[in-house]
């Protein structure tokens, strides 16, 4: 008996037209077509989706959480990027 596992796929579902695809979980399948069919059976048994994306998990590259502090640091001290940084006179409307 072969000990080879089917590859792992990450599944993304668009719950309704106009919304973005969202990660819902993963599954094993021999190829992309089977991954989409399995994703339909596993993740959309109750009309949870109108569109499915699958990506083989090995193709997903992720940032390293241990580096989070340094990695996101550049955004830390730039509060002027937020509208609340600016004072708008009370009499000014629609801004």
């Amino acid at each position, binding site marked *: 008996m072969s000990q*080879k596992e089917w590859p792992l796929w990450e599944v993304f579902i668009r719950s309704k037209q106009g919304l973005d695809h969202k990660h819902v979980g993963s599954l094993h399948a021999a190829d992309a077509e089977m991954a989409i069919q399995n994703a339909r059976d596993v993740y959309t*048994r109750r009309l949870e989706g109108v569109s499915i994306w699958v990506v083989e998990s090995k193709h997903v590259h992720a940032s390293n959480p241990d580096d989070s502090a340094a990695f996101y640091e550049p955004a830390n001290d730039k509060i002027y990027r937020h509208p609340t940084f600016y004072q708008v006179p009370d009499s000014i409307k629609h801004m």
Partner: protein
Amino acid sequence: MLVKLCLRGMETLELTQEEQFQARIDADVRIEPKDWMPDAYRKTLIRQISQHAHSELVGMLPEGNWITRAPSLKRKSILLAKVQDEAGHGLYLYSAAETLGASRDQMLADLHSGKAKYSSIFNYPTLSWADMGCVGWLVDGAAILNQVPLCRTSYGPYARAMVRVCKEESFHQRQGFEIMQTLCEGSPEQKAMAQEGLNRWWWPTLMMFGPKDSESPNTAQSMNWRIKRFTNDELRQKFVDMMVPQAEFLGLTVPDPNLKWNEAKQGYDFGDVDWEEFWNVVKGNGLCNQERLQARVQAHEEGAWVREAALAHAEKRKQREEAKAVAA
């Protein structure tokens, strides 16, 4: 790795990685797959999640027994949908365990070799149609009580899988209750069948919450890591308080002579579970342990050629496409 943390502006405290981890847990920050975590946390989760997944998988067998014998097409369709849900729940959970580095094949191998456990409740036989009612109403009812707090468990992928499971589980319980209600409103024989089902399933269901708190050494650590949010005894008490009025509504008698409302604690006092039976089933000597495992192993082995053929087919197609790309 040590991180310096300033407290009250003066003291500098050095936290170990483990202390940082606990601080995040205490602040109810979810832990995600690539985050650092203590080995024991990872191991506990892999054990718990894979056991949970195995339970969903084996849980299909006692109900599968009744698919071809369901009393009507409606009941048969519902039961099929429910069993398919259980397979889905197993898959959500296996994929959550895989985010911790467990391999699917290894988890299945551990189930099939008997190394890994699954919920003992599925080692009881389903002898009558009323058992389909009892499994939905009682067993899934108990499962829901266990699972709802798990939607807030500290490990993100597990919590998210449980949210999905819980959404589907309430259909399971309601269809079980409906089976019981239909039987209880039917002929005296049907009502007797319902009562007989409750008699057999009540105590094994109470065992589903696990050993008494005083004999559950892992509970404290699991609570501390916020994997568990309630103790076994707390959940068992909740279950009894929830189910007794439902049994009364059905006109059924809970098979416990010591069951009594306790005004002071605003809950029921109830008899002690037969722990000898519990441990006996856990150790593999329940009525159906062998049969269940055999069915699982057989299904897995008989499906081997399908798994291999699908891989070979995918490989062949890939090569054909590559050849086409080279030719073009």
